[in-house]
């Protein structure tokens, strides 16, 4: 597989009229260990992540939601099943090809901001493009920075930024390469509710104005409330799949799922 030929967006299957899936998982199984001590984190999950939508993945701890995200993002390989990202079958790629895939097509936001402490905000944001050997487009950078509201903090290092500001840098970094899909792992987990709300607004905005496909793993019902679709996992299966709804509804659904 020649890495240079990875397409920007692949038209694939599903012509039922809705948005095309850019990330697709078919019968994904993830088993840890062998024999008697084996643990099944995912027991055959099939999911289509729609383009230009924000999909939230929720579930109690041990439900497999983080595992699912890792596998969809190409950070982990499933025990069986297939995963396609931007039309590319990722389960067969080697490490370098996966890395290039992540670089070009996937953006990440972590729970603990994970910025490089010795780079300025501006340098942190440009990092994925620099790793790809590209020079960032100045106009696009300016637009991004305006969007996340960091105009006056560009030359500051992470140590000089608040938690919220650091996460904003992280969001900008995830968006800078205009990835096919952006994965967010508990993006508000380390922030207070006000700051958390600002970040969620940012994420929603990038879906609405930039058409950025986003998958967010969260246990926070308020975070899931901004999503277009909420998937609930329990014991390695998708047990509930609902569209946009209020935090209240989500909490009820979560309780229902956990009680099973």
């Amino acid at each position, binding site marked *: 597989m020649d890495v240079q030929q990875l397409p920007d967006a692949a038209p694939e299957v599903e012509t039922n009229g809705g948005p095309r899936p850019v990330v697709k998982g078919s019968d994904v199984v993830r088993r840890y260990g062998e024999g008697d001590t084996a643990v099944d984190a995912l027991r055959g999950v099939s999911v289509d992540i729609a383009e230009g939508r924000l999909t939230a993945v929720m579930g109690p701890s041990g439900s497999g939601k983080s595992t699912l995200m*890792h596998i969809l993002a190409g*950070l*982990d390989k499933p025990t069986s099943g297939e995963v396609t990202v931007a039309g590319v079958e990722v389960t067969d790629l080697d*490490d*370098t090809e996966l*890395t*290039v895939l*992540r*670089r*070009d097509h996937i*953006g*990440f936001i*972590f729970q*603990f901001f*994970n910025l*490089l*402490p*010795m*780079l300025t905000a501006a340098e942190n944001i440009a*990092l*994925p493009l*620099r*790793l*790809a*050997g590209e020079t960032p487009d100045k106009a696009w950078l300016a637009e991004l920075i305006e969007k996340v509201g960091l105009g006056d903090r560009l030359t500051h290092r992470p140590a000089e930024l608040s938690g919220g500001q650091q996460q904003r840098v992280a969001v900008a*970094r995830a968006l800078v390469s205009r990835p096919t899909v952006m994965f967010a792992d508990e993006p508000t987990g380390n922030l207070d509710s006000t700051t958390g709300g600002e970040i969620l607004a940012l994420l929603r905005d990038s879906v609405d104005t930039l058409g950025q496909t986003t998958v967010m793993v969260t246990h926070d019902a308020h975070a899931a409330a901004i999503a277009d679709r909420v998937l609930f996992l329990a014991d390695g299966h998708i047990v509930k799949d609902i569209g946009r709804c209020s935090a209240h509804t989500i909490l009820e659904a979560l309780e229902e799922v956990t009680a099973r």
Partner: protein
Amino acid sequence: MIGVALKGLLARKVRALLTAFAIVIGVSMVSGTFVLTDTMQKAFDGIFTASYDETDAVIAGKQIVKGSSSAGAPVPESLLTRVKALPEVAAAGGTMAIDESNKAEIVGRNGKPAGSGNAPRLALGNDTSQPQFSPLKLSAGEWGQGPKQVVIDAATAEKERYAVGDSIVVSTLGDKHRYELTGIATFGDVDSLGGATLAVFDIDTAQTLLHKEGEFDGISIAAKDGTSSAALMQAVQPLVPASLELKDAKAQAEADSAEINEALGFIRYFLLGFGGIALFVGAFVIFNTLSITVAQRTREFATLRTLGGSRKQVMRSVIIEGFVIGLLASIVGLFAGVGIAKGLNALIGADIPEAGTVLGVRTVVVSLVLGVTITLVASIMPARRATRVPPIAAVREGSTLPPSRFAAHSLKAAIAVIAASVVAICAGVFASGLSVIGVAVLLGGGIIALFLGVALAAPHLVKPLTRVVGWPASRAGVAGELAGANSTRNPGRTASTAAALMIGLTLVTVVAVLGAGLRTTVESAVTDQVSAAFIIDGKDGAPFEAAEGNTLARTPGVTTASHVRTDVALVGGEERDVTGVDPATIAQFYTFAWTKGSDDTVAQLGQDGALVTKTYADDKNVAVGKRLSIKTASGDKRTVVVAGIYDPPDIEQMLGDVTISQAAFDASFPQPKNLFTFIDAPPEASADLAAVAGGFSDATFHTGQAFAKDYTEGFASFLKMLYVLLAFSVVVSLFGMVNTLVLSVFERTRELGMLRTIGMTRRQARRMIRHESVITALIGAALGLPLGIFLAALVTQALSQYDVGLSIPASELALFTVVAILAGIAAAVVPARRAARLNVLDALHYE
């Protein structure tokens, strides 16, 4: 607390091992030095005891001149008869001693003289009916009897695969004869004495071969049972003429032993110096590594404090870790030293007599104490910093070590230390009237302080230096840029790691620069004095047989030949070098820088004229016309009159302090040896001359152009040996670099996971780590090379009276920089692989 500390160490075995290695090398050098010198001492003691085992007294020529290559007064055969007649004497026998004048070459299987390089090739003789007087003991066969039999030393026999019954050729004083090998002998337990080859004949044969008919080099006497050596001496003394002396054999053995021990003492201190340097660098590495691990274990210490541990207990836990590492490293180093001893032996070119390796108590004690102490001293500061972790750090995310109180003042302190050290070094180098110990303390202490001061100041230099040395890396892509940014992240750590490499590089630079300066100066001194088409001189500047000079002079094509004789003699009661020149020809080859006199003065030297150097004249208040008395090793006296004074370059005067005519020399010095033979011949004669000179055993042939360089060749070899000894310190600092990198990769696990997630390939990760390592190494070079040049310049200034100039060997310095880069790349291999192999998922969730 001990349990916690030990469990902590076990959990991080690899880390502890890497840290320990820093000390192992230094300790093994120290241990190796002691093992080497102790083993040699024991071997020599064994030889001396064996030599004088059954001898009570010895009669030999009085040693008039120390260091002369001529033999002393001979012992007449008639004396032996009279001694044997004494009632106190049980047995007595004549001997041909181990003496430079008794030259013999055993011809090896390839037709060339057996034995390596510069080892002496000697003949011995003893009364084979009284073998107890021989210093050798038979290990196979029988002693030779008569003019056709010989016994050789065991080492030569083994090397040349000669066995008892073989027919071999031995050349004595130039005459070759064939002999039957009747026996093989050893020196006590030792197969050979420092690589010397020995051919042993019966006493009559030896006398004939060595042209000493009717005389011996010595008489060995054994007292009758019940007679004390004192009584024996009393009985024999009246028979001994004034030109000979009677010595108690035990006293003689002790004197010989003391002389060897003094020489061994010098070697020991010399090598220990390098071991000390390696340990000093090791201390840096320990300090650095412990500082990093303490910083990484902040949360651990905080938790201990939260659970009720006192600051003392935290400190103790770090100190105990240091102690255990130091102890383990010292034990390993102690035993590794035995292997190092063999390597050192090969390096300094001595031949350890094959005897049991001695691992003395002193070696064990010194190695362990040094290793543990150095480690403990290096652990103190990190341990103290560990105590300053507040308990609250246990619960805070991303807590770091509080900055040390000292940090704010570190630059001021650094400048003060550097200034003080430069003053001390200058005092040591320039001040006159200081004792050797005083100079050593000022220089040694000053240099150590200088290194510490620069290391203290280095963190402030990391940022600007990284900009310079990291520039190529930053051009190489984002991996290089990130590497530069990583290096400046923790300037203290980068500086400390680089400082370890700096020490080794500074010292090799000093050696290179001083060496280049000295070599150039000596070379010009040689070209200023000597100009000849062809020259032969002895190996390593030792004298060679005059006969060889004559043979060369007779080669067809030679237009003029001038021989320069040499020996040590007592001039006005003092041992001085005396040379004998040919008044008619010497001025053609040697340029006299006349103070008083001219080339005519040389031509008119005659039987009692002498030339002296200006240094000697000033020293001894000698003017033209002054009479000097010369006494040679054989007791011959001569008076000469100073006819001229000349001023050769102070750094290397090629003639002796006193120079007389060759005729006068040959008359007084019984076995003339040459220092040089100068030849004038057309260039075509070169091949013929080289061919003739090829057959000489102790002279080397040079062309005029190559002579100056060849002359300093031995010095160049000495420099290489210094480089090898200093290389140990560089290796220690390499371990420091690996340590730091491994720990820093570990520390950045989550960060590396993140980088890999957002698109850094494994290759980019490896390159980033490699660039970081090279940047650190180059910072070490950027600090070390200028520091080395500075120190060398100081010493050069002090030697300015010898016209030594500062010569900066650019190619050597470039080589050192390349070595630094290679060291950086080598140190990065394992850490880079670890960084690349990180499991991204695990790394992301790493706590």
